[in-house]
């Protein structure tokens, strides 16, 4: 028994002193890299999804689904490819959500009160006012401006919304946005230009 205990202690000591294997190192490093990447995009992705579906819980579900799909299927791909891949998955999720909603509204739309009105779903600007901001009135004005921008964005065709969100709000370059949207770079430029033109017409020279 004593021999067995001393062996166990020896094994434990050896395990404790052992250097991680290259495979363990690699797995840890890739997990850290993925965590860092997701942390860098999760909030912005959530806001983009929220602007598209205008519902917080649904937007959270869509972002969570996009994270899981990226992790499950593309974690081994070079990390430089993750951003366009992630946004492509995200927009696929948004499109699926919009299709499901369209089907549901066709099926249940004739029932009174069966489907909440879009205006009821729209986020209340006051909900986004953070309590610790030094100038609440200024923040409120920014929130209202953002609300106007969101409303105008929601009226754009889907591809123009995507081009604007990816290029302007998320800061992807044309090639990344094209990869995320699954179209040619020229199409991204066209959609983006038309989105800007329409937004300027609806919101004024300077938003």
């Amino acid at each position: 028994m004593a021999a067995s205990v001393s062996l166990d202690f020896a094994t434990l000591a050896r395990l404790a002193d052992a250097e991680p294997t290259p495979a363990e190192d690699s797995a840890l490093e890739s997990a850290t890299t993925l965590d860092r990447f997701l942390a860098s995009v999760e909030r912005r992705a959530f806001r983009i999804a929220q602007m598209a579906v205008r519902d917080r819980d649904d937007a959270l579900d869509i972002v969570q689904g996009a994270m899981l799909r990226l992790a499950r299927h593309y974690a081994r791909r070079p990390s430089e490819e993750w951003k366009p891949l992630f946004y492509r998955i995200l927009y696929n999720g948004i499109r699926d959500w919009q299709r499901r909603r369209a089907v549901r509204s066709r099926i249940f739309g004739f029932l009174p009160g069966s489907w909440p009105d879009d205006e009821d779903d729209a986020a209340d600007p006051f909900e986004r006012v953070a309590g610790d901001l030094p100038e609440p009135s200024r923040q409120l004005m920014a929130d209202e401006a953002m609300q106007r921008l969101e409303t105008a964005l929601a009226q754009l065709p889907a591809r123009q919304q995507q081009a604007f969100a990816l290029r302007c709000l998320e800061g992807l370059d044309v090639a990344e946005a094209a990869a995320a949207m699954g179209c040619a770079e020229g199409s991204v430029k066209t959609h983006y230009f038309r989105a800007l033109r329409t937004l300027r017409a609806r919101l004024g020279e300077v938003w």
Partner: protein
Amino acid sequence: MSDGERWTENERRARELFDASVEGLDAETRSRLNRARQAAVAEAERAQSSPWRTWLPVAAAASLALLAVALWRMPGDARDPSAQSTEGAPAAEVVELLATSEDFDVASEDPEFYTWLADRGLPEANGTG
């Protein structure tokens, strides 16, 4: 873009508003995003520690494709047993041939065939009378 300065100002303003809305996310939303991220990273680690989960469906699909190709490429004769050659047919088939009355009559009318059959060392089927 001909009016680049004006567009740039609009883009900059939109980006500022968006950044502010991201910064203003409430604690509960941040927390849920954090949990979702941790679940995704754990999923990636699981997928990495058991690569068969990734490759098993691929291997299964490849095997099915190979099987389909093999069946498609197989010669028609091999798939149709009725088309097999009767050359060197086993004795059982000859016995079966003789078991029918029609075939027996043909054999009895042809003594050479009957002699050949006897040379094969087969038992006389159904008697001779």
